[in-house]
C-alpha cells in the first residue's frame, strides 16, 4: 500500500533541490519527451492518468487543461498555487524546498499543453525559505536554458491571507489587489489572471506531470483507484507517534495511514477522531477510519480528501476546544466579501467559545447548526462551505461533549 515513492523519491538526498541532483535522477527527460508530443496529446495523457487536483478540490487536471479555448489568440497563463495554508497541510513546503525542479519541469510540460508562454508561482508570504529555494532553482533553470526559451516563470510572494489559496482569490491577489474570490463563471480557464485564459494548478499536482509523461497514463492510473490515479503526499500531524509527510497510493486507507505509516496514536493511545483532509474536511470518529483516502472514497464517507492534511486526536482531546480553534481560524480568515460567511464565521466562533468557557446557552448548538446550514452554498467561493464541514460534523458526532459544557 505504501507504493513506490514518486514525488518524494529524492527527499533523502541533502542536495535534492539542486539542478545537478535533479538531472542525476532523470530530471528534465520528461520535458524532452513532451517536446516531441503535440499539445493535445499531452493533455489527453494527463486526462487518461486520472490525475486529480491535490490542492483541495480534486478536479481532474487534464479536463481542467482542456477548458482553455482552442481558438484563443492572446496570452494564456499558467499559475501554480503554492499558497499552502490549509491547516494540517505541509506537503507543498517539502516540494518547494526539496524538489523545486520537479515543479519547473511540470510547468514546462503543462505550459506546452495549454500553449502558455508565462507562468506565475504564487508562494505564501510566510514561506521565506521555500521561496528562496524555489527562486534559486528558477535561476538555475534559466541558466541551463530550460526557461527563457518560449516559457518564462515569475515567482511571486503573497503577504499572508488564507483565502488567496482559493484559485480566484489567488488571481485577484496576483493582480495586485486584496485576495477577494471572483464569481464563477467565467472560470479561470476562460477568463483568469489579467483577463486571460488561465490554469491554476497546485504544486503537488504539477509535480506529478513529468512522471505521467515519462512513464505513461496507464502506469499512473494503476497506482490508484478507478477514478483517481497515482500517489499523493499525506501530511500527518496531531497525536501520532511519527508525524510527517507520507507518500502513498490514493487508495490507502485512513487506518493504514494512521497506524502503519504514522506509527499509531499517542496521548492515551485510543483514537477519538481524525480530520482526513485539512481543517475544512468534516471530522471522522475513531470508528470511521476504514475508508480509502481517494477523492471519491472520502466523499462517500461524508467528508473530503481536500489537501490530505490528516490531524489525529486521541481520547484526551476536547472536541469543543478543537472546534473553537478551528472556528477562530475561519472567523479570522473570512475575506469579508459575502455576508453569510463574514457574519456567520464570527458569530459561530463567539458561540463555540462561550460554550468552551462554560458560558454556553442551551440553544447555542442548534443555533450554530442552523446558521451554518443556512449559509452553505450561498457564497462566491468554497471557503464558507469548508467552514460548515467542521461546524456541523464536530457537533453532530460529539454533541454530548458540547452539551456537557453548557450550564443547565
Amino acid at each position, binding site marked *: 500500500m505504501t507504493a513506490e515513492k514518486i514525488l518524494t523519491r529524492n527527499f533523502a538526498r541533502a542536495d535534492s533541490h539542486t539542478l545537478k541532483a535533479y538531472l542525476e535522477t532523470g530530471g528534465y527527460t520528461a520535458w524532452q519527451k513532451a517536446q516531441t508530443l503535440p499539445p493535445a496529446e499531452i493533455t489527453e495523457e494527463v486526462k487518461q492518468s486520472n490525475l486529480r487536483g491535490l490542492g483541495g478540490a480534486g478536479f481532474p487536471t487534464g479536463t481542467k487543461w482542456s477548458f482553455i479555448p482552442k481558438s484563443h489568440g492572446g496570452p494564456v497563463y499558467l499559475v501554480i498555487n503554492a499558497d499552502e495554508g490549509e491547516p494540517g497541510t505541509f506537503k507543498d513546503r517539502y516540494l518547494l524546498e526539496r524538489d523545486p525542479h520537479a515543479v519547473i519541469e511540470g510547468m514546462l510540460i503543462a505550459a506546452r499543453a495549454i500553449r502558455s508562454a508565462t507562468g506565475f508561482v504564487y508562494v505564501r508570504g510566510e514561506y521565506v525559505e521555500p521561496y528562496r529555494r524555489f527562486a534559486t532553482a528558477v535561476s538555475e533553470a534559466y541558466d541551463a536554458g530550460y526557461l527563457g526559451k518560449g516559457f518564462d516563470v515569475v515567482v*511571486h510572494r503573497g503577504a499572508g491571507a488564507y483565502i488567496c489559496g482559493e484559485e480566484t482569490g489567488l488571481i485577484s491577489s496576483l493582480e495586485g489587489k*486584496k485576495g477577494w474570490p471572483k464569481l464563477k463563471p467565467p472560470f479561470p480557464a476562460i477568463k483568469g489572471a489579467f483577463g486571460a485564459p488561465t490554469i491554476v494548478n497546485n504544486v503537488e499536482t504539477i509535480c506529478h506531470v513529468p512522471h505521467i509523461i515519462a512513464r505513461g497514463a496507464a502506469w499512473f492510473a494503476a497506482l490508484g483507484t478507478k477514478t483517481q490515479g497515482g500517489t499523493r503526499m499525506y501530511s500527518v500531524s496531531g497525536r501520532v507517534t511519527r508525524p510527517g509527510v507520507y507518500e502513498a497510493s490514493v487508495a490507502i486507507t485512513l487506518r493504514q495511514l494512521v497506524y502503519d505509516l504514522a506509527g499509531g496514536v499517542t496521548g492515551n493511545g485510543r483514537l477519538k477522531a481524525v480530520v482526513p483532509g485539512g481543517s475544512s474536511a468534516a471530522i471522522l470518529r475513531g470508528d470511521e477510519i476504514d475508508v480509502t483516502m481517494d477523492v471519491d472514497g472520502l466523499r462517500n464517507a461524508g467528508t473530503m480528501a481536500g489537501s490530505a492534511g490528516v490531524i489525529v486526536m486521541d481520547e484526551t482531546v476536547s472536541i469543543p476546544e478543537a472546534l473553537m480553534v478551528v472556528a477562530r481560524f475561519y472567523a479570522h480568515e473570512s475575506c469579508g466579501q459575502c455576508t453569510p460567511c463574514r457574519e456567520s464565521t464570527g458569530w459561530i466562533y463567539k458561540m463555540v467559545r462561550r460554550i468552551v468557557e462554560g458560558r454556553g446557552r442551551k440553544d447555542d448548538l442548534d443555533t450554530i447548526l442552523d446558521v451554518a446550514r443556512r449559509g452553505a452554498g450561498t457564497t462566491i467561493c468554497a471557503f464558507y462551505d469548508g467552514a460548515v464541514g467542521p461546524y456541523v460534523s464536530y457537533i453532530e458526532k460529539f454533541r454530548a461533549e458540547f452539551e456537557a459544557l453548557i450550564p443547565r
Partner: protein
Amino acid sequence: MRGQDGTDAATRASTPVAFSVEQLAEVHRLQGLYPDRRAALLPVLHLAQETFGYVSLEVEAYVAALFDLTPAHVHEVVTFYTLFFRAPKGRHIVAVCHNLSCHLAGAPMIVAHLRRRLGIDVGETTDDGRVTLQSVECLCACEHAPMMQVDDRYEFGLTPEKVDRILEGLR
C-alpha cells in the same frame, strides 16, 4: 508598551519616505514582470516594509504614486494581508502558530511562556523595541508542532527551554 495599532509620530516624522535609485530600478523591474504593472504591488510593498520598517499612511501614498493608483487602493490592499505592519514593529517578529495541530501540541502554553518572558501581550512590542509577539494561523509545519516563525525562520518542536534559547539569540 506599544500596541499594534499605536502610532509613533516621532518615528514617522524622522523617516524619509523615498526609495534609493537602485530600489526604484528594482520597482521598475518588478513592474515589468507582469502583463499589468499593478501586479507588482505586493512585491513592492514587501520592499517598502523592508526599507521603511512598516507601511505607514505616508508609505502607502508613496507606493500608490509609483503605480498611479489611489492611496485608498493601496490602503485596501495593505490592510487585507497579515504580513504588512501599519505601525512600528519590533526588530524581531515572534509569531506562534495557534492552529489545531500546534494547539494539540501545547501552543497555548508556549504563548503563555512568551508573554511571561517578554512581559507583553500578544500583538504588543517590548519597550526596548526588540520583539513583537504574535499568535497566528497555520504556518503549515504541523509535523513539528508546536512551532513558530521568528522573522524569516521557522522554529520547530518548541519547549519553554527552547523558546528561552531562541529569545536569547534575538538582539
